[in-house]
């Protein structure tokens, strides 16, 4: 009758480790929001940034919010898209685009 004790102990250990991580995460959210996100938000306002600097390989991946829907296919109609990031990020929603 030892295996089930070990198993229950293991599950409790894993669950408490996960719970602790989630609690730690929750507390760091409020701390890092103040120390990191607020200054970054100020930066967005000061430099008038519109996009995150994640994919720098093409215009439409660097500034997805500023690009036209057809920018990935700008070379000629029905051209294949060149850049790998284009397959990772989703295309903008239809209602994001003004006519």
């Amino acid at each position: 009758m030892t295996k089930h004790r070990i198993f229950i102990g293991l599950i409790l250990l894993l669950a408490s480790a996960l719970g602790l991580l989630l609690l730690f995460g929750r507390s760091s959210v409020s701390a890092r929001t103040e120390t990191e996100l607020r200054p970054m938000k100020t930066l967005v306002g000061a430099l008038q940034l519109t996009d995150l600097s994640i994919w720098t390989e093409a215009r439409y991946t660097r500034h997805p919010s500023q690009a036209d829907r057809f920018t990935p296919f700008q070379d000629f109609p029905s051209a294949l898209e060149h850049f790998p990031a284009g397959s990772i990020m989703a295309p903008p929603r239809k209602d994001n685009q003004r006519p």
Partner: protein
Amino acid sequence: MRHLKILEYALSSLWRRKYKNMAIILVYAFTIAVLASILFLTHALKTEASFLLAEAPELVVQRVSAGRHELIPLEYGDRIRKIPGVAEVHPRFWGYYYDALVEANYTLLEANADHTPLEMLDGHLPAAPGECAIGSGVAAVRKIGPGDDLILVDSTNMGIVFEVTGVFRSPSDLLTNDLVILDRADLIEFFGTPPDLATDISVRVNNPKEINTIAEKIKRQMPDSRPISRSEILRTYAAVFNWRSGMMLSVFAAALVAFCILAWDKATGISAEEKREIGILKAVGWETSDILELKFWEGMAVSLTSLLLGLLAAYVHVFFLGATVLTPVIKGWSVLFPTFRLIPFIDPYQILVIGFLTVPPYVASTVIPSWKAAITDPETAMRG
């Protein structure tokens, strides 16, 4: 007590086939870790983007010519200023620069002169011609820091020297990694922008409820313009990091298919050895319900352990290791790619979804075939 004894038996039964079960737990936990990593990463990025870009310009007006973004006449700004409800109009100057030396793309942006010092910047923004502030990604690839020179080739193919007066701190990489901030006059001269044109125009509106009305008025008065509101920017980012789209879905689907194969393999039949075991248990007096409970505990032991291991691995991977395994997949061809230092925004709903998508199907696929064996005659079951 009876349940504990059945659990004890179930664990002994799993231990007898320990290598097979450990392999299943490993694959199962890995699948969960991949799924959870994608969900954690996209949710954290989406939440950060929506928080940060809430300060983005209320309205950006571009000019579109022949279906492409074109430079916008400054005179458009004067016309926009006259629209009732518009508080402020600010022409923006920015553009892209390909640095052949390190094969990286930079975003060159004008320094807005009238703002307070920035907390995320070591040094200061360019205050005079010939100065620049750079993102930590640019500083790293060019191996330069405050006080050093950054040489860029302008539109006339002349090398221009800028003194680095500030470097953005790495916690702001998500916004500033590839930025080179120049003085407005320097930027206009560098790109050779005609004096009456800007890249686009940002508009501040008195009443945020009027943004869409003003955007419509701009579009009506200047049909070749394209107003992009802040809510559209936010919606774009909500869509970009939607886990149900693009490559994320492909990775997600591949992991899900792998898991389905695993579950299907278990569900389509149990081995002759397991059937014989069930037959013997029935012969020595076990009820069908006891056998089902035994199999339930076997399934629960494997799936619960895998779920917890997978979630732990995903958390550590995304929030402590900066999603290093996923980064090569999502990096694409970007030379400058920020190191993710994500803030652990976690949606409990996602953890519940992962749990419900993985544990019940696995437990069901363990219990159902055993139920078939448990209701057959013990002698037939023992004979296989």
